[in-house]
């Protein structure tokens, strides 16, 4: 058993044993399930199924209009009465569905490809792609429009927000082949995005935040200033919380190839303190701006992140 398995929360293990809800499975178990779509669908379904038994169930959205059925739409939202009258399939659209535009900002820089336990623990990018797909599905299922922007030190791909299943599949097709590369500069990506967004929406940043914090926070504050809701998922491999290795080690930044020789034992405590300080700083700096900051360990089930999203979504009404 490796360190991460050992550190796995007992509650999660218990959940794994209790049910087959994919949102409660640990990432290494999700990897074995299948591809992006399959996993995202099961995660979201599992999560929603859980919600029905939770105090947070129900979307509390109001009907606004109908639109023509399109393949991939959830059959639960087909208006059977309209079908009886018109012999056509119509989908009920709700007020909120058209009010929220979700923007998924996915960090695909080289650091995202890293995992501390190759072959067991998925990389941050895998987790980010899975989370993105799941969040997109949730948004779509809620009738929201969802767009995708991938970036490293520049924008790599951009899909404008739209609703519907087909759009979700398009997102999946975009997400699936993404490989991590390049350096990270979310500041410029966020500023670029801010220039493109004409309607206010929910901006969800998924990144390991190994970035220039001041520039990134400034960009996030700018988005917030433009009226967007901002949710930050800080992905962290458990191996980044604790400095690995013993003795003299030359640590190499995968993005810059910069080497830093240190005696791991000598700086382990300071490293732990530096990590704690950085995380606390993110939280302290973002909270006053109304920016939701969620630390997500890549060893954690997806439910934790989805719950944070849902919590945010509920507050948005």
């Amino acid at each position, binding site marked *: 058993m490796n360190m991460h398995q050992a550190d796995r929360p007992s509650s999660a293990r218990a959940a794994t044993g209790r049910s087959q809800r994919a949102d409660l499975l640990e990432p290494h178990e999700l990897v074995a399930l299948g591809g992006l779509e399959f996993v995202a669908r099961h995660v979201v379904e599992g999560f929603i199924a859980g919600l029905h038994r939770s105090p947070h169930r129900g979307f509390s959205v109001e009907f606004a209009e109908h639109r023509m059925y399109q393949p991939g739409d959830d059959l639960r939202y087909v208006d059977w009465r309209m079908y009886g009258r018109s012999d056509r399939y119509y989908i009920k659209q709700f007020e909120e569905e058209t009010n929220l535009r979700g923007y998924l900002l996915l960090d695909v820089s080289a650091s995202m490809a890293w995992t501390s336990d190759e072959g067991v623990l998925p990389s941050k990018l895998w987790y980010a792609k899975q989370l993105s797909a799941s969040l997109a599905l949730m948004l779509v299922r809620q009738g929201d429009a969802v767009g995708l922007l991938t970036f490293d030190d520049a924008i790599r791909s951009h899909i404008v927000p739209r609703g519907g299943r087909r759009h979700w599949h398009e997102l999946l097709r975009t997400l699936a082949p993404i490989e991590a590369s390049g350096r990270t500069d979310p500041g410029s990506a966020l500023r670029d995005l801010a220039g493109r967004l004409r309607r206010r929406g929910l901006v969800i940043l998924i990144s390991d935040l190994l970035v220039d914090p001041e520039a990134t926070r400034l960009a996030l504050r700018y988005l917030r200033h433009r009226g967007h809701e901002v949710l930050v998922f800080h992905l962290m491999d458990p191996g980044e919380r604790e400095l690995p290795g013993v003795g*003299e080690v030359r640590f190499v930044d995968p993005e810059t190839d910069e080497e830093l020789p240190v005696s791991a034992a000598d*700086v382990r405590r300071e490293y732990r303190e530096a990590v704690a300080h950085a995380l606390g700083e993110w939280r302290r700096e973002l909270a006053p701006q109304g920016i939701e900051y969620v630390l997500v360990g890549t060893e954690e089930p997806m439910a934790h992140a989805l719950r944070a999203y849902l919590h945010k979504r509920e507050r948005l009404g």
Partner: protein
Amino acid sequence: MGLLNPLLLLLAGAAAVPLLLHLLQRHQGRRVIFPALRYLRRAEKESARRIRLRQILLMLLRIAAVLLLAFAAARPYLGFGGAGHSPTAVVIVLDNSMSSAALEGEQRVIDALKARALEALDEAGVDDRFWLLRAGQADEPALMGDAAVTAVRVRETEPSAGAADIGAALAHARAILAAGAEGRAAEIHLLTDLQATGFSARASADTSAPPVIIWHPGTDAPANRAVSAVEVGGGMSPIAGQRTTVAATVAGTPAAGPIDIRLTIDNRLTAAAAARPGETALLSLPARGAGVITGTVEVDADALHADDRRFFAARVLPPPAVQLTGTAEFIADGLEVLAEAGRVRRVTAGADVAILPGAQGANGYDAETTLVILPPAAATELSAVNRRMAGAGIPWRYEAPTTGEARFAAEQPDALLRGLADARIRQLYPLVSTADANTDTVLVRLADESTWAVRGTRSVGGTYVLLASPLTDEASSLPTSALMLPLLDRLTGAWSLALPPRMDAVPGEEIALTPGTSAVERPDGTHDDVAGATSYRFGAEPGIYRMLHDDSVRSAFAVNPPAAESELARLNQDELDTYLPGWRLHLTTGDGAWRRAAYRERLGRELWRPLLLALLVVLTVETLVAAAGNARSAGTHAVEADAG
């Protein structure tokens, strides 16, 4: 301090390993891809100073550990305070001169010296080498051996009757060590009473000389009294049937009172007197028949018994029949006085001794008569004199006289002749040998080494004695000096009879034997066969040594310790440095100081135990310092606490 395994000190070079590791370590660590370098950089920046100090401390501790290990492996030892020592070649100079027999309290000095020597030998190692030099027996070679053999010899050593020449002994010891140390440490153990007379001459050395560890009693010399000199008949041979005197000179502590002196002849007390140190007492010697007389002069026993008795020997002669030819005013007057004193008989024929100024009638005497020939009063007779001498079978001739003032040599064989130092020779007829190989005996030399008196045997048989100056007041100052009568007595007596010039010697001295001597009877009555030998070395035992021709005593020698040995005054440190300049002297007294000083290259207490203890302490500290760093890294999981 020294090292038993100095080569292992090369291990100290391994001290470079921690240093190199320290310098290279940061560039040779494992390469790990790690994206969170941002946090790591901050952590490294915050702890850089502490880490650097800790790593330097660790490096120093590790270097210290390596050095301590290498030093301990080399097995260092202190140069003092220990029981062992590095292999050492030691020359033990044991001063067993006569003064070492002196009693100090209940113990003889020699016993204290031997005890110290044995202490040093007890501490000897198997690789040590020893030579024993008994300074009181100068004729004895150095005795080499291991510690056990040398200890036996030391125990057997007894005071000799001779004097020590410490400077010569040290020079000898140094030469021995230079040739025989064979890579060992070298040192000289000098065990002596520091008697001042043992340091008669300066003996210098350079810094390469081995150290000299000296033990001495450290006390004042004991009071001593001795008979320092005995003279029979005032320097002239006793005449048979005549009373004479024995002059005994007393030496010793000046403040001492009168000392009883006893004269013993043939084991019978003959006379007694009293004298203070520095005084000479005259003891009456009754008339004796012709022959050799021997005896002793004694004083009461004191701290040093060996010099309380002094032996003497003298020859009692019948008055010789002397004939004087020609006119020699001063000689005739002198002979008249000697005749009145009964020391000669004046004759006109049948003389034992014929005194022939200008060799008048030299060829008219048979072999029974000794010819005493003096130069002519005038140089014009020189060729005639030389012809007469040649005709008488004398292989010498006189050269033309030289004028000026000549002196006698300072070195003379006896007290009488040493009196010649004040005389002046104004007319000298140089004596030149005409023989190819001259074996004649030169009796007196001048300061310029030229011959003034010589004795030989004529080719036709019989003895001759030649003088290089006439005994006239124009030719020398002798006729008008007090020496004239003793000189005439010697001329007609000992010189003419071919008697040995003296009858005393010191232990170990070598003398020329009179032809015909077959044996020497030692003081203990044993005989040394000397037939055919030309010289004889006296033993260490004082006493009377009799020279035998077949079974008859021809002459005798009184062998006595050197008078100077009775002067027990001792040197102090400053005086010692003056006499032994350049030597590395370590003066000790008392038991403990000697034990500490002997064997300069001491293997004191080995230091590997404390060094290993220090190494353990260093390694413990190193472990603690290293563990402190690990403990920091294994501290509470602040990340989770803060992040949660």
